[in-house]
């Protein structure tokens, strides 16, 4: 690339390319032809600039193992009953074990053999005064843990898709965390409710053998438990809790749902959630309601009793409804979570960073204003100090910024507020390469060299210094990229891209301007 002409062509080509790349990311995009805008990747705005929500959830995987073990205990009991093997009871012990109490050594042997043959998921059994203990083997617990996290991710993705957020990001992070980014969200409270709800729906029969208050005081009868119905008085906001005694065993769960929709009560025009069971669920529902006419059926959501209507007649057709003073939004969201399915385990929000759209807008404006001020100050300073050569350096800074924006669009990078700061800083630090070269040229001129040899010596000698200076900044930028999150990654990206591009614009861009002065115009003196 010795020829001045070809270097100019190269610079012009890169500049045009950069402009083509970044213009669709600016407000000008509305006036550009659509084939242009659509075929070019865009610079994304970070959540701190466009507003939105960044959530980190931890999935309680032990709970997933616990409920899986609970279900296994049920199947073990069924199997033993079916085979006529004598036992006292089957319970879940701790997080991952099923204990079977046995009457004698003979049945103990049969129990161990049956469980080993029918369920391949337990390790070697261990004895514990009168019971035999089966613990899930390591492989199985690992499988459930992995399943819990991927299932939680799928379910949440499903819920968010149904809720309708543009371009959500839902990812696994580390062992048991999910990162969720929802840009441009209008109602963060509602989104959190929707995402965080475990949504385990159960239909259980109400146990009316003793009053719930007796059960509360003296302990519930075996196979039943006390749960509460929470209600909020809409006028005073006061919370009240009513105890109910219900069977532990669920006759149906949310797994049997085919659909859940919002419907309106014809009498009071109140919204409620209408449920449709799948065919197996419908049969179970019909059988149970036939057997239990006159009893009450509790609808339990995440351990809270929602309502407990009385069964007046057998219900066929597999339809049920959840009523109870919903607002339209609450009913919609409940229908969404029921349709998307329950989370395999409860999730905890361990990090929530939400930025409102107006703060984001303020940040963009502040960033741009600061950028314009910073850039003007630097550019004026350079002209003031280096005269015509300062103008050349300014031109290089200008190219630097254009190409940086172009590169960011091309890489589909995310611009954050610290990222804007990184660009502004690139302006200040970016002139350094040229300052190094100019100072060197000045020294060479002072030493009595001709402009042409001073320029060449200046560029040659400053080269390694510039490389060293750039690499050291790149090291810290790389570390920031590795360890940083969202906004800080954005800073690392714009800083490191800015520095790499600077190497090109400062060395190629300004050199060609000097070569024109010394070779084509044959100036005896350069303005520096």
């Amino acid at each position, binding site marked *: 690339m010795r020829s001045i002409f070809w270097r100019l062509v190269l610079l012009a080509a890169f500049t045009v390319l950069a402009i083509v790349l970044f213009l669709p990311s600016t407000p000008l995009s509305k006036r550009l032809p659509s084939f242009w805008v659509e075929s070019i990747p865009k610079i994304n705005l970070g959540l*701190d600039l466009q507003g939105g929500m960044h959530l*980190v959830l*931890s999935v309680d995987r032990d709970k997933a193992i616990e409920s899986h073990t609970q279900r296994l205990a049920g199947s073990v009991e069924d199997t033993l009953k079916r085979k006529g093997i004598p036992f006292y009871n089957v319970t879940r012990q701790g997080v991952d074990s099923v204990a079977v109490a046995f009457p004698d050594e003979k049945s103990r042997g049969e129990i161990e053999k049956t469980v080993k043959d029918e369920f391949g998921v337990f390790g070697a059994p261990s004895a514990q005064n009168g019971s035999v203990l089966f613990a899930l083997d390591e492989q199985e617990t690992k499988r459930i843990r992995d399943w819990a996290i991927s299932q939680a991710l799928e379910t949440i993705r499903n819920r968010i898709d149904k809720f309708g957020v543009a371009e959500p990001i839902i990812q696994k992070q580390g062992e048991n965390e999910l990162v969720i980014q929802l840009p441009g969200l209008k109602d*963060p*409270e509602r989104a959190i409710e929707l995402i965080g709800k475990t949504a385990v729906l159960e239909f259980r029969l109400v146990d009316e053998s003793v009053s719930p208050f007796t059960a509360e005081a003296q302990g519930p009868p075996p196979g039943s438990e006390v749960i509460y119905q929470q209600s909020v008085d809409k006028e005073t906001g006061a919370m009240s809790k009513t105890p109910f005694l219900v069977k532990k065993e669920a006759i149906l769960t949310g797994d049997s749902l085919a659909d859940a929709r919002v419907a309106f009560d014809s009498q009071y025009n109140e919204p409620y959630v209408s449920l449709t069971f799948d065919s197996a669920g419908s049969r179970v529902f019909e059988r149970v309601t036939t057997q239990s006419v006159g009893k009450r059926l509790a609808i339990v959501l995440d351990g809270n009793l929602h309502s407990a209507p009385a069964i007046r007649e057998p219900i066929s057709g597999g339809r049920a409804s959840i009523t109870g003073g919903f607002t339209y939004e609450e009913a919609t969201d409940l229908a969404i979570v029921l349709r998307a399915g329950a989370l395999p385990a409860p999730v905890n*929000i*361990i*990090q*929530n*960073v*939400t*930025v*409102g759209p*107006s*703060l984001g807008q303020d940040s963009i404006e*502040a*960033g741009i*204003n*600061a950028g314009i*001020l*910073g850039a003007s*100050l*630097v550019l004026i*300073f350079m002209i003031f*100090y280096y*005269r015509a050569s300062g103008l050349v350096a300014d031109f290089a800074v200008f190219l630097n910024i254009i190409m940086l924006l172009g590169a960011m669009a091309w890489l589909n990078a995310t611009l954050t*507020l*610290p990222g804007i*700061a990184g660009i*502004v*800083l690139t*302006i*200040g*630090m970016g*002139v*350094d390469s040229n*300052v*190094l070269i100019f*100072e060197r040229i000045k*020294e060479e001129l*002072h030493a009595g060299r001709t402009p042409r040899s001073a320029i060449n010596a200046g560029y040659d000698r400053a080269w*390694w*210094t510039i490389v*060293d*200076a*750039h*690499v*050291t*900044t790149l*090291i*810290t930028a790389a*570390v*920031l990229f*590795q*360890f*940083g*999150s969202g*906004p*800080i990654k954005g*800073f690392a990206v714009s800083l490191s891209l800015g520095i790499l591009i600077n190497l090109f614009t400062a060395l190629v861009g300004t050199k060609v301007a000097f070569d024109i002065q010394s070779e084509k115009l044959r100036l005896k003196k350069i303005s520096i």
Partner: protein
Amino acid sequence: MDFVRNTKIDFLGKRKITFVISILLIILGFVAAAAIPLGRANLSTDFEGGIAIQFRFQKPFEIDKTRTLLAERGFKDASLQQFADPAKLLVKLKRSDGDLRALSQTIGGVFTTGMPDNSFVIDSTTEIGPTVGKRLQKDALWAVIVSMIGILVYVAWRFEFRFGVAAVVATFHDVLAVLGVFYLLDKEVSLLIVTALLTVAGYSLTDTVVVFDRIRENMRKKTKEDFVALINRSVNEVLSRTIVTSSTTLLASLALVILGGEVIHDFALALSLGVIVGTYSSIFIASPLLLYWNNKKKPVFAKA
């Protein structure tokens, strides 16, 4: 034009004074760093866990009123901060246990009922659980350590080991100095500030490398002067560049301090402080340090 040309300032001659200043700065930095594990540092919500909510009210309010309202509802430990815009309020609560969502909803409710004539929107909410805070602290520490090692290796490879050590000492000095000043000003240390500190490290190193480069170049020429004179001459030769680059970088970062808005104000302030300290340290700390390491042996360089 030139600010400085052909100066012959005896920078190394002032090293006794500047070393004292720098040792004080380093001690201050260590005090600030030690305050972190002792729990006396002003750490941000991202590091400590807790809640930070930024409100934008419809009209200006009395900060004392908001403080009283919060205290009445049991939030005596909330820290309140008003911005240049008198209608904006930042409420921070350093409680990382319990239900953070419920707590932030309660805080919002306090203002809804306590100041019914001044409605608000929530500009931002940050809720960080305790495990996340600890992890972010660890990440930040790792970032600092890894970048210091990276710098040491690169400079040791490009120059020689003692240059690497001097550069890292000077860089560490700058990071500690900025941290110390932030401690004195009772500014909050957040993830963003750590980012600024690492950027300062990168910048300060650039400055140091430029001076070292010249020292190396002059060492290759066979001159009769001793090492002290050589270092002095090298620093003087690049002084003009040092001043110009520091000025332009400072202009850019000061623009961010003035106009960048509340979110990055402290970040930009840390950068500006870092540029100043970084320039000072490359002249007065990094270069003199070369004298104290095996200075009898004339360094041998591989060709760059």
